[in-house]
């Protein structure tokens, strides 16, 4: 796009004998500069909007108000998720059997992810629903983080609730028995990677 001074040819002759001084063009091609300008603008716009942090809302249940309201969840609709060390995650449906046979392990993403487990549970609850207006009424997910799990794990699971549109979930303290089960499972998972 380099610009040439083509105006020289179109000049009126100044009359015979008058020598034309050679005029150098003062024009600069600004196209690359414009390119650069817009490139920088795009860069700034993207970097500013991307770094805006978002906030995730969390409502805690009130412990003091009507305790008899608790534990009302139907056993068939309950899914308990336990988080252990090193991004290990476990779950069981309904109540934990005394022999621990329904204590299963999952992962945060990839194969056998917790998302699939939640979706399966959701479909299961929906298939057995009695109230057609609110088919997911019975679905309750209980989240029990163990001592060793990280903040990220907790957020990931809470996020998973948002992703799968689970209406009822609760962040509950882990019981001693479950905590032991989680730490044993963590150790055995470490032993056989």
């Amino acid at each position, binding site marked *: *796009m380099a*610009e040439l001074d*083509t105006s020289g040819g179109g000049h009126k002759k100044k009359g015979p004998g008058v020598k034309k001084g050679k005029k150098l063009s003062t024009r600069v*091609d*600004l*196209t690359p*500069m*414009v390119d650069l*300008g*817009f490139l*920088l*603008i795009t860069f*700034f*716009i993207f970097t*500013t909007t991307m*770094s*805006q*942090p*978002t*906030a*995730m*809302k*969390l*409502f*805690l*249940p*009130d*412990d003091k108000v009507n305790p008899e309201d608790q534990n009302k969840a139907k056993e068939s609709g309950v899914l308990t998720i336990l*988080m252990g060390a090193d991004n290990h995650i476990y779950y069981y449906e309904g109540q934990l059997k005394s022999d621990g046979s329904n204590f299963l392990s999952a992962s945060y993403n990839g194969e056998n992810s917790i*998302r699939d487990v939640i*979706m399966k549970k*959701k479909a299961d609850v929906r298939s057995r629903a009695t109230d057609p207006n609110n088919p997911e009424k019975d679905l309750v997910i209980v989240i029990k*983080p*163990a*001592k*060793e*799990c*990280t*903040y*990220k*794990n*907790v*957020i*990931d699971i*809470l*996020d998973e609730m*948002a*992703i*799968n*549109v689970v209406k009822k979930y609760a*962040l509950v*303290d882990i019981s001693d028995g479950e905590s032991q089960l989680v730490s044993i499972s963590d150790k055995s998972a470490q032993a056989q990677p």
Partner: protein
Amino acid sequence: MGRAKLPRKSTTIDMTAMCDVAFLLLSFFILTTKFKPAEAIAVTTPSSVASKVAPTKDFVLITITKDGKVFLTMDDEQKKETIANALNTTRNLGIDVAAFKKAGFFGAPLAGMKSFLAIPEENRKGDQLPGIPVMDSTNNELVTWMQLINESYAGAKMDLLLKGDNVAKYPSFKGVINALKKNDILKFQMITNPENAPMGSDLWKQSMNGVKQEN
């Protein structure tokens, strides 16, 4: 036979005006961008699908670092003054109110508050400070803090934010939650990085159908 000559028109456009606009916009964006101030407390937040932008006014921010230490940040100096005075009268700590007002964040046990404020602002680094004790359920000082904050805000709008590091362990998060529960604060927001809903999930289907996200 000569052909009729068509006048050759130049295809170049004058770029000066466009260049002016581009750089005007550029300078506008550069000048209006607020750069993130260097943070005394380094925290890498996890990401979530939440799309609501975190509030930047009238907030109380609780930060959990990767070692599980808890820090508190407030933006309202008036409220800070109230809290400092309340601490001085009830606990007799002898806090320098002016320094307390100017402090960007708090991260020391109440007993060590005076020496914390004696450290120059630029030398207060999150990894060297003890943080507010929350782990011990009998001595959870965040309870006191939240109680004072509640009192100073008394009905005014206040956004409680929680910002935790990816690798912070759960017990410190639980300590914070316990402190909030004790003060009947059951609603708070957690700062995260935005992320898109994964394909095929229920939330993704909802957003495809145009249902607005609630959170």
